[in-house]
């Protein structure tokens, strides 16, 4: 899988996203506590940790949904902390949500068309191609709210791709998706990586994380307690302690 050709070698050297000592507090609770991490182009990263460890808050701080209290987020050569969510999206960061957020009373096709920078006619081809990719082409005129949970999840996933983001944040992509769909989804994520895009995913399904990610970050109580290859992480004492207690 990890064929290292010349092009990918170059890509790997490029930093896509750099987070420096990012902190976010809600009242007295420090949800994210001085987290630093670096993502390189063309790689798949995992972000794991027990419930309430700050994974989604970190996503929200990167994408501007939440304002960080301290620290810097650098993407594509410039700081993005302090920008509005739509500005960050336009710079090339796409995301999905833990709880699905499709536009329920727009059709599946419209859900994609609305995201484009081009005019509607020009975007149509790409939108249909993406719907074919996740086998939703037949349902293109159906309201997104009428699709099944798994179908909505796939729709939300390809909606992110309409803008061709360089960094894709996926919040629990595997949750509630059946095995067949899941394999398609994982293939799609690898395909994105092979195009040179970077993927950071929050996931509770360890099989998915271990099978897909090249580097895993572990959060506990808002702090990054470990970082490394999946095999190494699994045997890390602090990680085991965070999940199972001492």
């Amino acid at each position: 899988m990890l064929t290292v050709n010349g092009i990918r070698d170059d890509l790997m050297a490029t930093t896509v996203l750099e987070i420096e000592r990012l902190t976010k507090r809600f009242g007295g609770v420090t949800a994210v506590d001085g987290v630093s991490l670096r993502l390189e182009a063309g790689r798949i990263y995992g972000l794991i940790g027990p419930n309430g460890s700050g994974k989604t808050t970190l996503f929200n701080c990167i994408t501007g949904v939440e304002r960080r209290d301290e620290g810097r987020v650098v993407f594509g050569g410039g700081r993005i902390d302090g920008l509005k969510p739509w500005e960050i999206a336009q710079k090339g960061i796409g995301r999905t949500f833990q709880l699905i957020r499709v536009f329920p009373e727009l059709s599946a096709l419209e859900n994609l068309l609305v995201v484009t920078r081009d005019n509607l006619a020009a975007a149509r081809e790409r939108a249909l191609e993406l719907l074919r990719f996740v086998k939703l082409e037949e349902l293109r005129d159906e309201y997104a709210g009428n699709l099944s949970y798994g179908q909505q999840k796939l729709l939300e996933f390809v909606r992110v791709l309409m803008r061709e983001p360089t960094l894709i944040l996926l919040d629990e992509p595997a949750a509630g998706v059946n095995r067949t769909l899941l394999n398609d989804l994982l293939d799609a994520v690898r395909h994105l990586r092979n195009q040179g895009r970077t993927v950071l995913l929050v996931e509770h399904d360890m099989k998915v994380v271990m099978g897909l990610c090249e580097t895993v970050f572990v959060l506990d109580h808002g702090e990054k307690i470990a970082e490394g290859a999946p095999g190494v992480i699994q045997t890390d004492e602090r990680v085991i302690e965070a999940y199972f207690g001492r």
Partner: protein
Amino acid sequence: MIRRGAALAALAAVVAGLAAYPGYASGYGVRATLQIFMWIVLAGSWNLISGLTGYVSFGHVAFFGAGAYTGAILVAKVGWPWLPAALAGGVAAVLLALVIGYPCLRLKGPYFAIALLGLNEVLRALVSYFEGLTGGGNGLSLPTLDATIPIYYAMGASAASVTLLTYVIITSRFGLRLMTIREDEVAAEAMGIDTARHKLYAFLLSAAGPGIVGALTARDQGYIEPISVFPLATTITMIVMVLLGGKGTVWGPVLGAVVLFVAQEVVWARYPYVHPLLFGAIIVAVVLLMPRGVLGLLQSRYRLPRTI
């Protein structure tokens, strides 16, 4: 294609019929149709902001009133002809929307609705206060002029313009983006849509029509006072018309305006005491039985295109 052609032909026939109507109609018929046009403009305009973005404006009559006073003052005090005064009424309403929309559109849900309700009350108080310009509580009389038929055409043109504008918006990327604000504003922003700018544009567009027909109404009636051009009931009626016909659709506000106005005239005029009761019953029935309105229901059931 054939169905589209037939629909266009039917539409052209209706427009031609309405254009010829004053030639053979009674005075009452012309006045009633003129008012239907006005309601189409008001309901259609409310639909542009509230039906599409989900930001429910409870003070939309403020733009009607602002247009009415602007037009009336220009005609009565400055001596402008009514047509440019009506356009100035539209401009005044859009400027008001710009001033009020910028801060208020940051408010979500009920807070936005209440803020606009407050705007309407403030305007009514201001108009009552500046007696020198507005006549205060005594109202403002315009010079006598029988312009019912030209105003009929001006109202009709406004109704056609608002409906055409709605069609253009709903079938465009801009319109789809407005709908994403209604569907899920957080997701819309995460997809790179500048929701603040989109909402403001929709709000400005939604103020122009009420401003123009407000000024036309002032000219047509020849006399306005604060309670006659800033009534909350007018906003409520706009909302009910759109909910009845189908929010976020092209023809829903037109259908709602015609049905509700005709029902009001034909049936309710004979039973004045039950009128408010029936009005309330319609609101409850629509909300309970078909929250998407007549066209919204048809649209989701039969997958009709957005051009309906």
